[in-house]
């Protein structure tokens, strides 16, 4: 076989591999959507779940998922931003400490989420007496999310050419002023992309939440917006089963007659939400980039 033939064979093999990856993805998505979408209705999306009878919805779980995501981002984004800025703009790149921090982040990102969940359970739920709550769940998810988000902020800052930093310095800006006025605005599109993509991952996370945010979804009173009331949706100390946890629970111990249908519907909603996050990330990053660079 000569070089030309070998190249041809390699090309075909690579095409087949790439094609099968897409095929698997398409089959998965197609299966979940075909199974789930027929069950979707306004009622399904808004009604509370039922334990023993058919016709329950996922309204509370859906709200919990978004609210938990919001609280998680509220905690993790400022930390990730600070850490990312430190690592890329301030840290001495050759020092041991920086290497140590990077290694720690890498290890943190490879921890299995169920371990993070159990750790959160022991420390926050039991030791700090936070109970099964949105707060415990959000902190556990922060552990899960922080390394990825920090990495993505750091990468976003790294793509800004050094020329921009020098230009800032040459105008007499301090390092901090350069970061705030030049580097962050320039990196904004890719930072936003990072946030939205990590939101997609957090949204679908179940294992880390089972033991922290809990597996029960007490009925919520959507007319009560006082965050200190037990039935208020905004209360962060209440247990909150999310959509992903709900799917896991129905499939392991659901006894409602339409369990299969609810599970399929909930899965479809979850997948659609994650897909939306991905499209949103792309759209936001493109439009922000255009606003920053192209003609208005």
């Amino acid at each position, binding site marked *: 076989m000569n070089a030309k033939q070998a190249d041809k064979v390699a090309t075909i093999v690579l095409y087949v591999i790439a094609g099968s990856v897409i095929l698997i993805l398409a089959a998965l998505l197609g299966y979940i959507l075909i199974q789930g979408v027929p069950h979707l209705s306004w009622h399904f999306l808004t009604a509370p779940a039922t334990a023993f009878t058919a016709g329950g919805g996922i309204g509370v779980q859906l709200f919990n998922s978004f609210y938990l995501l919001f609280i998680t981002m509220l905690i993790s984004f400022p930390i990730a931003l600070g850490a990312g800025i430190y690592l890329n703009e301030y840290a001495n790149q050759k020092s041991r400490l920086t290497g140590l921090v990077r290694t720690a982040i890498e290890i943190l990102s490879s921890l299995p989420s169920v371990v993070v969940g159990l750790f959160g359970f022991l420390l926050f739920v039991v030791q700090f007496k936070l109970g099964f709550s949105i707060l415990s769940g959000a902190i556990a998810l922060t552990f899960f999310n922080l390394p990825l988000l920090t990495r993505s902020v750091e990468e976003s800052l790294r793509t800004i050419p050094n020329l921009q*930093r020098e230009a800032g310095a040459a105008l007499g*800006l301090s390092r901090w002023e350069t970061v705030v006025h030049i580097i962050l605005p320039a990196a904004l599109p890719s930072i936003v992309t990072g946030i939205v993509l990590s939101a997609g991952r957090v949204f679908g996370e179940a294992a880390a939440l089972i033991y922290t945010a809990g597996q029960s979804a007490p009925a919520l009173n959507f007319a009560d917006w006082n965050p200190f009331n037990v039935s208020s949706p905004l209360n962060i100390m209440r247990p909150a089963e999310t959509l992903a946890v709900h799917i896991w629970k129905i499939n392991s111990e659901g006894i409602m007659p339409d369990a299969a249908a609810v599970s399929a519907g909930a899965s479809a909603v979850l997948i659609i939400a994650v897909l939306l996050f991905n499209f949103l990330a792309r759209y936001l990053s493109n439009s922000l980039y255009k606003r920053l660079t*192209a003609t208005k």
Partner: protein
Amino acid sequence: MTNKILKTRNVRLYYGEKEALHGINLSYEPTGINALIGPSGSGKSTYLRTLNRMHDLTDYVTVNGTFTFKGQDIYAPNMDVVELRKEIGMVFQQPNPFPFSIYDNVAFGIRISGEKDKAILDERVETSLKQAAIWDEVKDSLHKSALSLSGGQQQRVSIARALATQPQVLLLDEPTAALDPVSSHKVEDTLMSLRDQYAMIIVTHSMSQASRISDQTAFFMDGHLVEVNATKKIFMNPDKQETQDYISGRFG
């Protein structure tokens, strides 16, 4: 020799232990163009960056020597680097406008120092863009992103941005190296039109550029200042054999 605006004596710069500049003595008139020429790695850019303390940003770099700007020691501990860099502006090899509008780019330095008055900002932006000879090309699109301009236009906006803080000295680190000949020519014209108002120090690889636009030329080699003189003298009848060899293209 008292009317020099900027004087440097015995400038030595170290990367860690290694000495990269071996005692440079140069001084500059308050106006006119000074060219620094020499082969790659001769230390001319490194030297240029000592003048506005750009090496402060880099770890492991030590700068020694006497730097006097209008009678003040540039490296004095109480020197306000922010003020210094407003008076000694800098333009880089790659055009590097910020990803903002043309107006915001030019107004940036003045805004950062606290100027909020719209009328003053407008006036200063217009003057700077006119000085940089780009006003006519951008006056109708001041709020377009500076990144939408061509490389040559971006470089002239970068010059306008440096001029907006009303510096007295302008450092130019190979400002035309990344530009096509037509754009280079425009930037050169811009510099020529500014020579009566500013002290400009330009690092350049182009010997023809140095001979066309500069009043004084300094030839660097291996971290030494080989020779400094009126540009005409350097190019017609240099004192040192190395200078003669370099400008006649025998090496470098």
